[in-house]
């Protein structure tokens, strides 16, 4: 009797193929396909309703989508730069500490240990206009007697979200930059001091170039993080009020799961992923340039 025999290499690779297909390839293809259909979660049969690039065209002309896109880029830029500056400052200070540095390093990472959902709730409470910690403090100190609508006013709410993001994730920068500071060879720093550099010049011309690769790694990681920001914003403002803090993924999430328009949500999702890819490629380019200029690997 003839039995089909697979070559051993294929047989051995088969489990990996099956798993990859199930968890990556099929969902990817399916979601990509569905972005070309009028798929609605509430009417499963609509997944076969091919509408070509209609969803993409619609997204391109959708002012709400582009507002969310722009806001996400803005959040990314503001949060990343703030986190970088604060993280750099923190790392420089912690690096100077000689006693209890381990403890400080551990404490620095505390914000990362909380679920972003909880962080969202915490800041939602802090920024609440009636019972919130912040308004209470401001009023008790006599700095204001009105209830500042932190999470209602568009710019204030954006500030509140940036604040929560920065609070949670500055330590990513701080830890990576601190690792960079430890890795810096001392000789060039001393050479710079002998060569006539002030402490600021030493930092500017020697320390900072050495830190750039570490900063870009942190940037790359965090840009992916912020580009998919959802949890904190969803909890604090849910993108509202009236879309004032709408980000890409709160919009996509609502379109897909609340409005059930999954085809359209997927189309927006694919455009959003482009954003992440662009940022990642950008920071990796920067990283490679910084590394090459330091003579680290080619």
């Amino acid at each position, binding site marked *: 009797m003839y039995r089909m025999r697979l070559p051993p290499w294929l047989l051995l690779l088969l489990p990996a193929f099956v798993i990859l297909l199930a968890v990556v390839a099929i969902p990817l293809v399916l979601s990509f396909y569905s972005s070309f259909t009028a798929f609605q979660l509430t009417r499963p049969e609509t997944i076969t309703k091919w509408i070509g690039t209609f969803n993409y065209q619609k997204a391109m002309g959708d002012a709400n989508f582009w507002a969310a896109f722009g806001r996400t880029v803005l959040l990314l830029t503001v949060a990343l730069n703030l986190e970088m500056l604060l993280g750099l400052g923190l790392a420089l200070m912690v690096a100077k500490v000689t006693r209890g540095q381990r403890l400080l390093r551990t404490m620095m990472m505390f914000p990362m240990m909380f679920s972003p959902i909880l962080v969202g709730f915490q800041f939602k409470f802090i920024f609440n206009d009636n019972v919130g910690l912040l308004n209470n403090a401001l009023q008790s100190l006599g700095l204001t007697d009105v209830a500042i609508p932190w999470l209602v006013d568009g710019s204030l709410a954006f500030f509140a979200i940036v604040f929560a993001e920065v609070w949670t994730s500055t330590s990513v920068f701080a830890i990576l930059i601190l690792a960079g500071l430890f890795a810096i060879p001392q*000789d060039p720093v*001393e*050479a710079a*001091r*002998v*060569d*006539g550099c002030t402490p600021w010049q030493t930092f500017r011309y020697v320390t900072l170039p050495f830190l750039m690769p570490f900063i870009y790694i942190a940037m790359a990681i965090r840009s992916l993080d912020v580009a998919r920001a959802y949890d904190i914003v969803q909890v604090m403002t849910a993108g509202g009020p009236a879309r004032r803090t709408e980000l890409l993924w709160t919009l996509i999430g609502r379109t897909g799961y609340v409005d059930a328009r999954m085809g359209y949500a997927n189309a927006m999702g694919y455009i959003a992923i482009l954003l992440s890819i662009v940022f990642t490629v950008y920071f990796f380019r920067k990283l490679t340039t910084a590394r090459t200029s*330091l003579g680290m690997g080619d």
Partner: protein
Amino acid sequence: MADVVLRDVVKNYGALPVVHAINLDIAHGEFVVLVGPSGCGKSTTLRMIAGLEAISGGTVRIGDRVVNDLPPRDRNISMVFQNYALYPHMSVRENLGFSLHIAKRPKAEIDKAVAEAAEILSLTPLLDRKPGQLSGGQRQRVAMGRAIVRHPDVFLFDEPLSNLDAKLRTQMRVEIKRLHQKVGTTIIYVTHDQIEAITLADRIVIMRDGHIVQIGTPLEVFERPVNAFVATFIGSPPMNLLPATVAGGALRLADGSTIPMPPGLSVRDGQAVHFGVRADNIMPEGHSMPPTAHMAHVEMPVTLTEPLGTETLLFATLAGTEVQAKMLNPRPVRTGEVLRFGIALDKCHLFDATTGASLRV
């Protein structure tokens, strides 16, 4: 250019003293080498002069300024580091011009100074490369170039050649000496390599455990070491030291045999000493031993030979101690062969067995 004066300079790390109140006068234009085994405080001393280490006590003066509390940038010094310490993200040109750039000198002046330094050190074709694209010797030359563009008062070298291979080290040694002849700046140079010290220095400062043991010209420290440590540290191969006792105008070795007392020593009868003789002063007879009035003769079995071409190093046993002797115009020697050696007594040393101090008067 300037002289450098250290007065009772102390360095403590916490409660641990690493440099004990050292005094040192370095003349303007002098090439001084600090040498000693690792941990002797020589690098720390150099770094205190540079301002990279705080001074725990005493004063350091460069020219007419006490520099104790001046940061390195205000001391007008240049330093060459063991690991080159180049700025990896800058080209050779930028590395060389960095200090002038920081000092906000006009671009034309920087270009001129860089071109000059590059010319002196044959770096001109490499000016646009990054340090990562240079060999060890080239990097060391860039580090030296970076030091000379500033025309500092003092050059400080911290073991600059120890990362180079033997051949390159010899070559760079010559270049450093040539550089000193050319620019004439005061140089303070730290090394653990006594050959570097002897070949480069106008004066050698030998340090041990945070103290200065001896200061002198290379010949002085070689020919008149103040103690057994200097005697064994300076010179290659190290001076042979044999335990002996002064007995009735002669030296009794460990096995009871005697050799005549070397001239010019102050000893008392019964004193326990170490008899010191360099390999150059103990040679098999018939092999170009320079004639001298005070000659002793011993017979020793050869245990090992190390042919070096123009001479052969012989390892032999004298009174139970292994000694190294030199054979000029060498012939092949069998292991175990007993040879008759001449010892030039007037070139020999005696050191007190307990203090190690030289007994020469």
